[in-house]
């Protein structure tokens, strides 16, 4: 109810109310952007653009869905458009680090440490994915969205979403193979 009033005030042009919306959601938006963008600067640019879009479009929000799902849709669209237009300079960086991170550590004897190493490896492997594939992967496994929901949010054909997901899975499968085998042995 309180959120409804704040949004109404923001729609009427009240900047204090708009700032309250920003405060409520900026951390969540940044968190999503970090998972999709390859670097922190990009994630912050995405978050900034999301709120500019919300500022421009807040009058079109008709309370038909929750405010968060509307905002989430804008966030994913902004992130997706951002990565479509961005140049992929970062392909040129961090090659040696990646190799180091994918190597299976034989020294770490405890499972807890292995689990941590695995988590880091999975994160690094995700960073290796092209961004469109990563976006779809994150939406599927982080937000647990269905293929048709992802397609609708990103304005893509369901077949295209499946293709991105299959490619992401295929690539991750290869990158994580040594870990998978090790975990299956346990």
């Amino acid at each position, binding site marked *: 109810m309180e959120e409804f009033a704040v949004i109404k005030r923001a729609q009427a042009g009240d*900047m204090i109310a*708009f*700032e309250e919306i*920003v*405060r409520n959601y*900026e*951390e969540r938006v*940044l*968190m999503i952007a*970090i*998972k999709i963008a390859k670097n922190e600067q990009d994630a*912050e640019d995405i*978050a*900034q653009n999301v*709120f*500019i879009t919300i*500022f*421009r479009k807040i009058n079109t929000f008709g309370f038909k869905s929750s405010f968060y799902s509307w905002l989430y849709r804008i966030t994913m669209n902004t992130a997706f458009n951002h990565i479509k237009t961005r*140049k*992929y300079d970062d*392909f*040129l960086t961090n*090659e040696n680090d990646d190799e180091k991170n994918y190597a299976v550590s034989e020294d770490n004897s405890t499972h807890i440490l292995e*689990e941590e190493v*695995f*988590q880091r490896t*999975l*994160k690094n492997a995700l960073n290796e994915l092209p961004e469109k594939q990563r976006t779809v*992967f994150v939406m*599927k*496994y*982080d937000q*647990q969205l*269905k*293929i*048709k929901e992802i397609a609708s949010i990103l304005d893509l054909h369901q*077949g*295209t979403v*499946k*293709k991105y*997901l*299959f*490619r992401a*899975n295929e690539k*991750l*499968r290869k990158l994580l193979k040594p870990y*998978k085998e090790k975990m299956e042995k346990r």
Partner: protein
Amino acid sequence: MNCKKFQDIILNYNISEIPENILRKLKEHKNECVDCSILWNDEMFFSQNYANISEPKLNSNRIERLHNNIMKSVRREMIIGKPKEKFLFWSNKIITPIATAAATLVIGILVGRFILQNSQEMNPTLTAYNVQEIIDNNRLNDIKISEVSNATNDVSFDLSWNNGARIEGNRSDPNIQKLLAYALVKANNSGTRLHSAKIMEGMSSNNVEILNALIHSVKYDDNPGVRLKALRALKNYSLNDTIRDACIFVLQNEVSAAIRMEAIQILGNDNDQKVQIALKKAANNDEAEGVKTMINKYYGNEGIPIRKK
């Protein structure tokens, strides 16, 4: 249950949400189908393990800095918004068309001069070592096939790498084959992927990278033309398990009946049991009459291959 239905359920529902009777059917299908079993394993593995990844840690300074930047941009947006409308009210009719025409002319002249000055520097010819290295390290953003000569079998590629680069060579050169395989899987432009598949269709090669690229395209390319050409190019290889699996995948998942029929032709009257099961299934369930007729041309009702006379 067929592969399409299996995929729809697996990709659209959490396994915990699926009713027991459907889950049983999924498991039965998974045990029969290699591709679906891979999908099932991926789904289990990623949904279990992704949930364990810790959330990124954000410190309060970072959030505060972001907050200030957001509000600064929003305020700038407020200020820019109003006077712009006032300016556009009278400028739209007179100034905007003149300014646009003038700007286009100036930019055109500058770009033209720049291209003329730099055309030689823009397209350095890469050495074979460079190609290997940039592909292996994912340094290529995109690739285009710019020229193909059927007389000499030469191919030219334009590469999106640094400022752009061009490489030319004969399709018998392993590096050129590597680039063809890369183009078939990675090129953004479907025309380039199609070109690449067409070239592969016309060459007999034992290159494993090309075979893998063809298999990948047959299964996952967006464009049906590319999938069809890639499938036709597979005819150049002698039938093995990888090609069999790809054809079975096509038979079970491909939307286009023409492509499914092409897969049946590749399988010919193969004796492999997997093939026979898949074909028998398709002979009973396929939506297209043409597919059923074609299967019956090679296989009898019992799924046993008929010898060609």
